[in-house]
Structure formats: structure tokens, C-alpha cells
């Protein structure tokens, strides 16, 4: 029974994603089915969490039916579509691919094993990591028990360690699954992260084959999602990889917007980067970095055509507005409940920066250490990324990919500034995790450059 309830909760998440991605501004109807399917999950988590947030503001208590009802009703409208699909479906049309021993076959097999191992492990072992207890699962448990976002509880001083000001996309989704389960089960809840991992693998592969060929796309999946640091954070209850996955989806659609100049891709990019900022406050830095990169791209592309430049400013405004619509309501509401960051205390940013500027060399040194010398956590990930970018620099200069590199540097620069501003000396314990937010986008850049070199 509990498995059926779990499946039900995931179906609702996928339906919520399908609902938003079927609307005109975010329509993904031209994408291949596997890509669409994976996007439904990520978009669905955004929709469910925003909807639950609104319910909480309206003082409507969470219940399985209360949250699911709009999406159950929406599913009724899908009946003709499902009927058409089923009537066209023939088992005889399914073809079993011929398996030949090749490098790509080995990579596919290992990727399959990875997903299988993670799903099995997540359905057997409970959470154990510090932040999972202290932050994400604790808040989800509070939402599950209280059936709302109880600001009076979150604002209690002894919960300051659980960063109550952090956005609630993940805790609200975990609470929703628990409400559907009818019980708190932190073993089954880990499947939320496992599903995210599997869906992102599908998306990442499906997106990369537009830019490079299949073997390199599969290698990119293995390189990114088989990295030991990524694997550790795939299911340990931290949300850094969830943030990274949202950011990468946004980055990939940003690349497609630059290549094809279709506004729909910019909308999708904004939607998913806004979602990243609703996963964790670090995502706001990524949103700002992508906004700056977009502005730069639009200006440099259209600066000789004033009409186009003016028109592109509307695109820019829509990008900012869409993202804001997703992550700003929480920021406003949490600020109105006096939930402030315990990391940045100073009201005067410039004064704090001036006072802390002496920390800059140490921070820069740690950045470099973490990127290239700390093989314990990241192994050789960033060394390979740098080498791929250096080898593909010809394509980088000639294509729009250079803007993705600008985005990565802008994000690192913002992180650098935040470290100068923060009160706590948490560089060693946090920077390697911040890099998880950038790693999927960096891997996309590095491997999408491979095609030109290969042909």
C-alpha cells in the first residue's frame, strides 16, 4: 500500500510538471518524449512547492487531496491524449536494440547500474548526513506535522542552525510525499533524490546529443554523474545537487536560446533558474550571474541594431520577471517574518567588504585548492573540465558557448564576494558544495565543445 501511495505522490509531481510545461509560455511539446518526461519531474517539484507555499499563506492546511486535487482534475483533460497514445501503441513496434560490445555500450551499462544501485540503496537505507537532519528533512518533518509552513516555529531562535530563511522547494516536496504516504518515512523520502538523479541523467544525455554525438554525451553523463563527489551528494539529503541540476537545465536552455533565438527557451531557462533560487539561496547568485550574462549577450549581439536591442530588452525583462515570480515570494514572506540569514549580519555591504577585503587572498587560494588540488572530494573533475575547455577553445571563441563560461566565472565571482561578506568562517566546509551547483553546467560546456574537435 505504501508503495502505491509513493507512486501516487510521484505521479502528482509529474502531472504538475506536465501541467506547467504544457502552457504556452513554457511549452516543451517540440522536445523529444524522454526529455519532456524528465523535465516534468523538475518543473513539477517547483509547481508543487509553490502551490503548497500559497496554500500555507492562505492558511489552508495541507492534505493529500488538497494538494493533489488540481492535478488530478488536470489529469482528466489528458484522457483523450492517453487514449490516442494507447490506441497507437503496439508492442510489436518496440524494437530491442542490438547490443554490441563497444565503449558506449559499456558506459550505458554502467550508467544503468548506477541508477539501479542508487534506487535500491535509497529504498533501504535512511538518511544520515548532517544537513539532511539539521535542515532539509527537519523542515520537511515540521511541515508534515504542522500541515503548513509554521513561521512561529521556524522563527524560534534554536532553529537558527537549520537556516529557516532558506527556500523551501525540497522540504515542501518531501512534506508532500510524506502527506501522501500518510506517515513519516525518511527511507522512502530519499527516493525523491534518486528520482531527481535519474531524471537529470535522462535530461542531460538527451540535451547533449543535440550538441555532440552519442558516445560523448554518454561519456559526459558518466563523467558528471559517476563522479564520486556528485554521487555522494546525489542521495545524502543535501540539496546542492538539486540546485546544480536546476541550474544546468537553465544553462542548457540558455545555450539553446543563444543558438536559436527563440524566446521559449529563455522562458524555460528563467523558470528553471528561478527554481534553482527556490531550492537554495545560493541559486540567487546563479540567477544574478545568468542575468548578467544574458544582458551581455543581448548587448553584444544587438548593439549595432537599436530596434533589436530595444526588443531584446523586453526578453531580458521577461527573464528577470519569470525568475523573480518563482523565488521572490518566499524571500519577501520570510523577510516579513524576520527570518534573516545568520551568515550575513551586516546591513552595510560595502563597509563589510572593505573591512573583510584582507580575506580575499585566502579565499582565492582556497578556491584554487578546491578546484585543482583537493582530489579527495572532486577527484580530477575540474582538471578535466579545464583541459576540455582549453582544447575546445577554438569552438569556444567561435560559438555562443563562451557565454556559458562567462556565466560560470560570474557565479564564482559572486560566491567570492559572498565569502568576503559572510560572518562565519565556513569556506572549507561549503565551497566544495557550492561547486556542485556549477558542476553540471561546467560539464555541459566542456562536453558540448567536443563535437567540433571530434569531426
Amino acid at each position, binding site marked *: 500500500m505504501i508503495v502505491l501511495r509513493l507512486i501516487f505522490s510521484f505521479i502528482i509531481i509529474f502531472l504538475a510538471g506536465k501541467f506547467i510545461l504544457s502552457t504556452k509560455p513554457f511549452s516543451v511539446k517540440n522536445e523529444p518524449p524522454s526529455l519532456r518526461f524528465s523535465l516534468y519531474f523538475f518543473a513539477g517539484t517547483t509547481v508543487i512547492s509553490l502551490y503548497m507555499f500559497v496554500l500555507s499563506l492562505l492558511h489552508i492546511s495541507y492534505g493529500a487531496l488538497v494538494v493533489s486535487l488540481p492535478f488530478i482534475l488536470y489529469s482528466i483533460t489528458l484522457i483523450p491524449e492517453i487514449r490516442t497514445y494507447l490506441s497507437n501503441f503496439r508492442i510489436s513496434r518496440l524494437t530491442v536494440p542490438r547490443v554490441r560490445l563497444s565503449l558506449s555500450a559499456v558506459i550505458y551499462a554502467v*550508467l544503468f547500474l548506477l541508477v539501479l544501485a*542508487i534506487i535500491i*540503496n535509497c529504498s533501504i537505507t*535512511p538518511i544520515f548526513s*548532517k544537513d539532511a*537532519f*539539521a535542515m532539509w528533512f527537519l523542515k520537511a518533518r515540521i511541515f508534515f506535522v504542522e500541515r503548513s509552513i509554521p513561521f512561529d516555529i521556524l522563527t524560534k531562535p534554536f532553529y537558527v542552525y537549520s537556516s529557516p530563511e532558506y527556500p523551501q522547494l525540497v522540504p515542501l516536496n518531501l512534506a508532500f510525499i510524506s502527506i501522501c504516504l500518510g506517515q513519516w518515512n525518511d527511507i522512502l523520502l530519499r527516493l525523491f533524490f534518486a528520482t531527481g538523479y535519474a531524471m537529470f541523467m535522462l535530461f542531460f544525455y538527451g540535451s547533449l546529443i543535440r550538441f555532440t554525438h552519442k558516445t560523448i554525451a554518454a*561519456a559526459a553523463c558518466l563523467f558528471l554523474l559517476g563522479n564520486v563527489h556528485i554521487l555522494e551528494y546525489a542521495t545524502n539529503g543535501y540539496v546542492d545537487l538539486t540546485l546544480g541540476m536546476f541550474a544546468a537545465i537553465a544553462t542548457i536552455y540558455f545555450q539553446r536560446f543563444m543558438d536559436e533565438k527563440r524566446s521559449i527557451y529563455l522562458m524555460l531557462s528563467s523558470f528553471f533558474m528561478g527554481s534553482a533560487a527556490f531550492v537554495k539561496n545560493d541559486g540567487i547568485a546563479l540567477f544574478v550571474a545568468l542575468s548578467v550574462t544574458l544582458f551581455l549577450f543581448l548587448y553584444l549581439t544587438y548593439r549595432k541594431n537599436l530596434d533589436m536591442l530595444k526588443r531584446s530588452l523586453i526578453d531580458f525583462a521577461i527573464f528577470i520577471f519569470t525568475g523573480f515570480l518563482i523565488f521572490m515570494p518566499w524571500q519577501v514572506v520570510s523577510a516579513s517574518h524576520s527570518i534573516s540569514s545568520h551568515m550575513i549580519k551586516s546591513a552595510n555591504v560595502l563597509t563589510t567588504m572593505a573591512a573583510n577585503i584582507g580575506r580575499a587572498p585566502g579565499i582565492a587560494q582556497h578556491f584554487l585548492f578546491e578546484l585543482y588540488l583537493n582530489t579527495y572530494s572532486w*577527484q580530477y573533475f575540474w582538471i578535466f573540465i579545464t583541459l576540455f575547455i582549453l582544447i575546445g577553445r577554438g569552438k569556444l571563441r567561435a560559438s555562443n558557448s563562451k557565454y556559458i563560461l562567462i556565466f560560470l566565472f560570474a557565479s564564482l565571482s559572486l560566491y567570492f564576494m559572498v565569502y568576503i561578506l559572510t560572518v562565519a568562517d565556513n569556506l572549507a566546509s561549503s565551497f566544495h558544495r557550492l561547486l556542485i551547483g556549477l558542476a553540471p553546467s561546467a560539464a555541459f560546456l566542456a562536453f558540448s565543445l567536443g563535437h567540433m574537435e571530434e569531426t
Partner: protein
Amino acid sequence: MKAYKIILFLSILVSLISALQYTYEQMDDSIKLYNKSYLEKQDYVEGKYNGYLVYRYYDWIKISLPKAKTYGILTATDDNKTYGRYMHRLNYFLYPEHIIETGTIFLLAPKLSSVKLYSAGRSSYGVLGEKKYFLISKKDGAGLLRLK
């Protein structure tokens, strides 16, 4: 072109090794923990990834402590990290019955395997966990309890 192929091959090789190693470890854990109780699973993963065992206490604490009070946790060592870890886990497991507050008095417990709780409101109340036994002050009407 040649350099690209070499780097690509090396990156695949490194990833293959780490992915297979991870798959093996995950499957190994899954086989070991399949059919174990929740607390046994928690003890295993905590012991493996964090190096200490605390979960066996939680069920007992949950039923033993008077409800609707705020407690401060006293750590097994004076190390702030350990203190935080206990506090985070207890707050997670005991919600909504109990809340473990930060900033209360620290006392040293003799072993890492012990947990002491102290009531912020009632200094006479104390809980001492030692190996598999817990002693509650008699003022609160309990004696020596043994964990399951």
C-alpha cells in the same frame, strides 16, 4: 584532436572506476541492511559515514522524557561539532514532542556512547545514558532503564 581523445579516454576511465566502486558499495550496503530494523540501519550508516552510534537512544528518549518541555543536550565530549550533531539529530527525531535547545550548559560525559540530557527549566532533572542503560533522576519518578 589526439589530445582531445586522450583526455576523453582518461576521463571515462576515471569515471568508470569511481562509478563501479560506488555501485559496489551501495549494493553491499543494501544487501547488509535489507531486513534490518530502522534503528539498526541508522546505527550502521552513522557508524559507517560519521563514526558514531546514537540512534539506539532515540526511541527510548522519546517515550521517557516528559512532554512539552525544552531540553538542552549535554554532549559526550566538549567538542562543538559533536554537540551540534546530537542536537540536530535529536531535534529531528523528537519533533514535535521535544525540542532540544542550543546554548545550554555543557557537561562532559565519560564516553562517546553516552548521552546526557538536561532540562533547561528544571535543573534537578537529569538523564544519563551509559552504554545500554539510562538513569533518570528519581525526582521525575524513574529509575534505571535498559534499552531494547
